[in-house]
């Protein structure tokens, strides 16, 4: 069965990744998946103020997810919301596993994720972008983090739901996956999926994440190799 936009069940939307898009950030990346665009910028490690937030054992990873007011058809009120606060938190825990925070006690690594355009899968696009931006900023990481959502539409498992599909079904499963250590650092579920469904959908996500990992590696290498050949 073909999907609304003509994709196969295990076919992602077109993915574009670019590293080093912002001049003033220590590391930055833009990830475009279909019509969803996320830009991540990383600053630091740098001094953390106010001082009482400092951790004497390790650096603090500070993730902030925000949506541009013009990112959806209906204007998004700027500033933190219940939703953006939650996504910031899950993004932080998805990234924290790979980032070496022990090397910079008392410091902070700031990760800002801006959704320029939203069409389903904004948190997963944000995590992909943040992972690239962290690597670009020269921060020690044990792995890259990849992330994609899958769900069930009309009784069929499909990967990377678009905005239209999300409206029909309401059940999807965003996953963040570490391709080297094969661990899962984010698993959320919206809607209703049975145990068997979750297993099937999860498998699909992991296959998608492995594809995304290749694109991430290419994007990172491209930034430096393009300049090498100049």
């Amino acid at each position: 069965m073909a999907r609304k936009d003509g994709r196969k069940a295990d076919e992602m939307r077109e993915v574009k990744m670019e590293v080093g898009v912002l001049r003033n950030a220590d590391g930055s990346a833009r990830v475009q998946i279909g019509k969803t665009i996320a830009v991540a910028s990383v600053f630091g490690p740098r001094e953390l103020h106010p001082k009482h937030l400092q951790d004497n054992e390790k650096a603090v990873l500070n993730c902030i997810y925000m949506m541009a007011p013009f990112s959806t058809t209906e204007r998004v009120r700027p500033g933190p919301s219940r939703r953006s606060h939650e996504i910031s938190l899950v993004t932080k825990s998805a990234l924290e596993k790979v980032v070496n925070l022990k090397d910079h006690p008392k410091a902070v690594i700031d990760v800002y994720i801006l959704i320029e355009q939203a069409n389903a899968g904004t948190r997963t696009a944000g995590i992909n972008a943040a992972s690239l931006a962290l690597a670009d900023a020269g921060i020690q990481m044990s792995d890259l983090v990849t992330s994609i959502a899958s769900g069930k539409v009309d009784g069929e498992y499909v990967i990377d739901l678009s905005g239209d599909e999300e409206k029909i079904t309401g059940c999807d499963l965003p996953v963040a996956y570490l391709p080297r250590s094969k661990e899962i650092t984010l698993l959320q579920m919206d809607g209703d999926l049975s145990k068997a469904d979750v297993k099937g959908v999860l498998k699909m996500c992991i296959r998608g994440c492995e594809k995304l990992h290749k694109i991430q590696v290419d994007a990172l290498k491209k930034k430096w190799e393009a300049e090498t050949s100049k």
Partner: protein
Amino acid sequence: MTEKNTNDIQKSDAANGNVSDEKKIVVPGELLMETMDYLPGKNCFREGNAIYAKKLGLLRTSGRVVEVVPVSGVYNPEVGDMIIGVVDEIQNAGWVIDINAPYTAFIPLSGVREFIDTNKTSLNQIYAAGDLIYGKVMMFSPSKSVHITMQDPKAKKFTDGRVVRINTTKVPRLIGRSGSMISMIKDATKCFISVGQNGMVWLKGENEDIAIKAVQMVEEYAHTTGLTDRVDAFLKKELGSRPAKKESPKESFEEYSKESASNEEYVEAKE
């Protein structure tokens, strides 16, 4: 990249007269090798038999050690580094210095050349807020407090000139093999240049602007091969379009150091 490709690149570079073994770019979590014959060096780690990269950078093997040379990141102080900093704040027992790192540094009273009686002398007579200093990292403790000493023959305060900040990972390239790159820029532009390990570069001279452009060029293309030739061409092109000045400061950098050292003595005498 297969071994064949790497060889091809090296061959074509050899044809151009540039040979570099620092070619392969690796990303965090990338498998570097699967053998117990090698040891993981900087920015690498071992898991089981395999060695993985921990940072984005260039792969380098020296002897039996594999390491990743980072292409980005912040300055991590090391004892003995000569660094340039800006005086941020004056405290009772010393100066707080911004050193372009995640942590601020501190110069204790015992870190300056002269004896200071705090009852008679105000500390901003020695270094005032905003002053540029060139000092040596004396201590870097596990709790990340950095102490700088000025009791080093090379240490001094800059009274004029300009400072540009570059990424600390590009400093070795800016200096070049046994100082080849930096001395080329110095000779061509007739500028005094001091490079701090923390990525702050101090310059003074007639052709400062050209020297700054050259430094920024090195920063931007630090990971490319044949850079020395291109910087040389750039300097010749830029300087060639300028009318030659009659007098050019021929005194060496060491002489300038002496001059600024005598400035410090002047401060002492004034008290």
